[in-house]
């Protein structure tokens, strides 16, 4: 009987492991399908040339410090875009020339009336979702958001089980001897 229960527990654990693996692979496939779908719809929606950014004629981008509201918005957007030539740095924090040019582009697009989402989308079209420091909560990215929660719950459950086991009242050896004696005399 004990062997059967142990076997069932083992099987359950393997099933959980398999489920985790299936979820991981499933999320990966979904993310690929979404990427392909979004690429197709974006490509269909955009005529050649629409993917390029050209500043509208006569646009004047205020220098840093002139328009504090624009500076704040530009800094907020730039803080969420990854510097392509650095390691884990935003274009806002990076001193690289390319980052500086990208910051200028962000300011220009904001002045031209583009929304934050449109600016992110522009950069995603060029560099993929890699450019976003905070990945979108979709596809395989969901693992980033949900795995910590899963581990928190699993860890708490594990600690609870162990603590419960430790604090379970132990039968004394005298009591055990009595049980053995009783069974022998029967």
């Amino acid at each position: 009987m004990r062997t059967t229960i142990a076997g069932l527990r083992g099987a359950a654990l393997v099933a959980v492991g398999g489920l985790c693996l299936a979820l991981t692979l499933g999320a990966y496939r979904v993310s690929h399908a979404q990427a392909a779908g979004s690429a197709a719809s974006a490509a269909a929606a955009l005529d050649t040339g629409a993917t390029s950014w050209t500043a509208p004629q006569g646009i004047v981008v205020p220098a840093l410090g002139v328009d504090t509201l624009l500076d704040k918005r530009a800094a907020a957007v730039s803080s969420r875009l990854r510097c392509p030539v650095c390691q884990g740095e935003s274009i806002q924090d990076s001193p690289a020339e390319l980052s500086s040019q990208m910051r200028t582009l962000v300011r220009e697009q904001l002045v031209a009336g583009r929304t934050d989402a449109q600016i992110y989308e522009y950069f995603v079209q060029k560099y993929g979702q890699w450019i976003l420091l905070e990945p979108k909560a979709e596809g395989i990215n969901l693992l980033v958001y949900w795995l910590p929660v899963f581990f928190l719950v699993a860890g708490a459950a594990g600690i609870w089980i162990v603590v419960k086991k430790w604090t379970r009242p132990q039968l004394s050896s005298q009591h055990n001897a009595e049980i053995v004696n009783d069974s022998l005399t029967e």
Partner: protein
Amino acid sequence: MNWKRAFYTTAAIGAPFIALLAFGMTRDPRSIPSPLPGRPAPVFDRAVFAPGADSLLRLTVGDTVRLAAHRGQVVVVNFWASWCLACRDEHLDLSQVASQFAGKGVKFYGLLYNDQEENGTRWIADMGGQAYPALSDPGARTAIDYGLYGVPETFVIDQRGVVAHKYIGPVRADSMSRLLDSLLTATPTPADTPVRRALPTPGATP
């Protein structure tokens, strides 16, 4: 200790992670997957600062190259800089292939990335010339439009104006020749369907 149980627990928890880490090992953390191949190439209007040596590719300094005017032609766009060591490795290969395919209507352009035009002109002279024209890219606008993160990077654009391939790092002549041959021999699809059907929209009716 129940070793069997311990084994199953470790396997159940460890296996998905080992699988995930193994998958991670197949990826280069420094490479940035480009979404451009298979999609319309970002257009550009850029001025020529070095004319190019091949008579079929030569342009006048100051001329403007418009990608939009190249529909129906295969175009190779190479991003380079005089400070880029790897660009030296590919320079001869690119120039050779450019001359080889000039008569077949393939256009080659070199876009200078974050560099001074004088440095670029001097570099071309030091390297013994360049078959195709070099264009300036002020503010790296075209480079950003193409999702550039280093040089050299080379984009091959097909007759429909769609990015057919992206090379990261130095280009080799044989690889580029094979690609251009395959693009030239492939039957171009009509201009009203510029995007490959290899990217279906989920749920869309065919």
